């Protein structure tokens, strides 16, 4: 069984800058409603949590490996499970790209401190199911 892995590191201060300067336009462009809900506390939005989710989206893109193609950030969603761990769910073009590339069973882990957030994504790669593989399309 082959695997593919992606990792990313995000500056929390860069996320704070985005919130401060672009507000809702930034938040609604990048994150789903569920993600924003998970990052809200009674004290307001938590930039560290947003940064971890952005890192997860970028780490997922490193697994998907799009070739000069725009993938909307909201099609890669971090979903918080009841017990506190997180999973990544794909939709739209991101999901199509995973299917075309023979990628499945995505696993995600995120972490953050005051200054940086990181994420790592691992997916199973089925080399027999790469629909975009020119060797398979003849």
């Amino acid at each position: 069984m082959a695997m593919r892995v992606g990792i990313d590191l995000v500056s929390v201060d860069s996320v704070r800058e985005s919130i401060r300067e672009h507000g809702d336009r930034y938040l609604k462009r990048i994150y789903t409603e569920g993600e924003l809900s998970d990052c809200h506390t009674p004290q307001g939005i938590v930039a560290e949590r947003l940064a971890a989710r952005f890192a997860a989206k970028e780490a997922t893109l490193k697994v998907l490996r799009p070739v000069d193609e725009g993938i909307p950030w909201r099609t890669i969603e971090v979903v918080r499970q009841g017990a506190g761990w997180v999973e990544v769910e794909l939709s739209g073009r991101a999901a199509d790209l995973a299917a075309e590339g023979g990628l499945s069973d995505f696993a995600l882990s995120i972490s953050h401190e005051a200054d940086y957030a990181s994420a790592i994504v691992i997916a199973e790669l089925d080399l027999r199911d790469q629909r975009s593989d020119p060797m398979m399309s003849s």
Partner: protein
Amino acid sequence: MNEDIRQIIAAHGRLSVDVAGLAPDADLYHAGMTSHASVNVMLALEDHFDIEFPDRMLKRSVFESISAIERALTELRTETPVS
């Protein structure tokens, strides 16, 4: 337009080098711009030029150099002329 782009990159790109010294086709990611910083650059460009980058342009190559950004802005402004 080129100078406006440089100012926006200087303010939001978090580069590790002086933007003024960068060639138009210099790779901004090699100069220290992160993926998230490129989002801030994108949003600042949208504010400044009153445009919106469509999903098809949300890719690394569009923001990889001053020249690439200039080409994308020219394309967008041609598609949606200011009334």
